[in-house]
């Protein structure tokens, strides 16, 4: 059965086939859960991201126990005592004499233990901060930064590509040379060079904004080039001609008639770009040039692990990498499925 697809039914069809794809639905749910945990980090995490206790540097994960002196009890954790072994390395021994029961829903947090005890579900970092809490507070930054960056570079890419393709001529040439200029510098180098221009005395919000801007500046050019190619062919089509002869202003034609036609392509690219931006933020933060320390992001949580020595003694600090992997993987799978569904070229 051959059917002439109009624009809407193609997108509907894509969503339908997306719905049938079990793997991408699974990925969608994983992302929903990740974003949910990030949004409710204040409630889920036992500690704030900057709550540190230097006596528990690189404290290994604490086990939750139910069984004590031969009977069941409400969940509790044992205290930890810091000792040093024969080569003066920190060793945390479990102190069986101290018991801290887990409190649920106390003080607006899902679970906590009382003060002298510390509860490290996923271990502690160098300054004795809870990795579990830092991962979810970090998720706020890592997961939002990709979306914001993509939003900005999409607006830039769509507008510039649309304008270049619609007007053609010297406008096109100038804008495309601009794109090429940005594409001429390898992404990571461009990121570092842009970062070098950011003043050092920024506070955490300003750093966040500047990282978003840096990310959005590296990705818009390639999108603009592709949108321009589409706009070049779209402007010759009848509906654009009709709109023109009716005296619709150029900017309205670009925004209302040309750009919506490119949606199917850009939606899939959107997802794939989000994942590359999450990776880029991680890369920038991991070398210490992205989000700065007390504020966590998945990238700068890993910066400790870049020297190989801490990893050997505290392998749990690699955990944020797993979450980067999961989030990026989900965005990639969804983007790939959408592209297959939307692009007739990839359809068999």
């Amino acid at each position, binding site marked *: 059965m051959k059917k002439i697809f109009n624009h809407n039914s193609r997108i509907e069809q894509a969503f339908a086939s997306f719905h049938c794809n079990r793997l991408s639905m699974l990925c969608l749910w994983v992302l929903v859960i990740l974003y949910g945990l990030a949004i409710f980090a204040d409630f889920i995490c036992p500690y704030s991201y900057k709550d540190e206790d230097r006596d528990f540097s690189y404290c290994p994960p604490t086990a939750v126990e139910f069984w004590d002196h031969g009977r069941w009890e409400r969940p509790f954790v044992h205290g930890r005592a810091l000792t040093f072994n024969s080569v003066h390395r920190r060793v945390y021994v479990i102190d069986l004499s101290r018991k801290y029961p887990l409190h649920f829903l106390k003080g607006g947090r899902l679970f906590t233990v009382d003060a002298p005890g510390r509860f490290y579900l996923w271990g502690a970092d160098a300054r004795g901060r809870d990795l579990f809490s830092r991962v979810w507070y970090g998720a706020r930054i890592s997961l939002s930064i990709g979306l914001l960056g993509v939003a900005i570079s999409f607006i830039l890419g769509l507008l510039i590509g649309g304008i270049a393709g619609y007007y053609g001529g010297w406008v096109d040439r100038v804008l495309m040379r601009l794109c090429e200029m940005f594409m*001429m510098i390898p992404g990571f180098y461009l990121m570092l060079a842009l*970062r070098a221009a950011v003043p050092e005395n920024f506070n955490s919000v300003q750093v966040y904004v500047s990282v978003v801007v840096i990310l959005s500046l590296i990705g818009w050019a390639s999108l603009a080039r592709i949108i321009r190619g589409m706009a070049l062919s779209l402007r010759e089509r009848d509906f654009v001609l009709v709109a023109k002869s009716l005296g619709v202003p150029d900017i309205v034609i670009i925004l209302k008639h040309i750009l919506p036609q490119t949606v199917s392509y850009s939606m899939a690219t959107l997802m794939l770009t989000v994942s590359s931006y999450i990776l880029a933020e991680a890369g920038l933060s991991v070398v210490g040039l992205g989000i700065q320390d007390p504020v966590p992001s998945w990238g700068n949580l890993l910066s400790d692990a*870049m020297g*190989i020595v801490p990893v050997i003694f505290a392998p749990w600090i*690699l955990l944020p990498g797993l979450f980067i992997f999961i989030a*990026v*993987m989900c965005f990639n799978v969804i983007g790939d499925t959408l592209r297959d569904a939307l692009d007739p070229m990839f359809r068999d």
Partner: protein
Amino acid sequence: MMLKHVFYRLCSTMLLLLAVSFFTFWLMHATPGNFFDSLRLNPQISQETVARYEKLYHLNDPLLVQYGHWIINILHGEWGYSFYYNVPVTHVLGGRLFNTFILSFTSLLLTWGAAIPLGIWAALRRNQWVDRTLSVFSFAAFSTPSFFLAVLVLYAASRWGVLPLGGMHSPHYDSMTIIEKIRDTALHLIIPAGVLSLSSMASLQRIMRGNMLGVLRQQYILAARAKGLPEGVVIYRHALRNAFNPLVTLLGYEFASLLSGAALIEIVCSWPGLGSLLLTAVRSKDVYLVMSSTLLAGVLLIVGNILADILLTLVDPRIRYGARK
């Protein structure tokens, strides 16, 4: 005709390079405050040096004039002074450029050497377990942050204890013979080059698979089979060549991601290349070093693109650049 095309490309890229360099230059100067202020406060640098460089780079002139002087200086081989390393920038850059080249080139060879056979294999065994395993693998490799993979491999290597953990040379490198030196560098190269090629291999393998599948559906393949040609000849003589051409175009783009990827891997594996140099430069606000290494990365990318273009004309006889005009 070929030469004319290369010449034309060189001219247009020169213009682009000028634009890139101006952008970098402007970026460095957009930072609030004169960067020489911090140099004046640095007791390690004599006031004469600062004054000399202020004069050399015409810091009191308007931006465009400064830029003009910078470009002229660059053409004269005077790339500026690295205040972090306390030597002229060119002294640092040369060796670093070479190291980045070694790393990128090795991983390029590894990537292409592995991805193309794997792509063909997956296409021929479409939707069988080989293809499925490879596609899961590509997705995983594509989604793993390269620096994270590098750390995992380094961690494994630290347990295993055979491969060196980062760096480029062993401490006693200077006292080695030539053959030992090559072996030593090759050993140090295994982890960074392997990790670097693993992530780009994933996408290349998928693309090769897609191309191959597209070509296998063509009429001429059907014709070749109908002629009764052996399957090996159909695939390796007729299909492969046509599936391969689009990849050569990709080679140009590959350079960009390769250089970016290499930068992070260099930093994690402490490979003394251009990327780790740029990081040091950015961290210490070493302006001339930042500008020069960004510019050099741009040049490297352009050279790569031109090479890919030339290669394309050699591989695909249908492309004749001269005929276009």
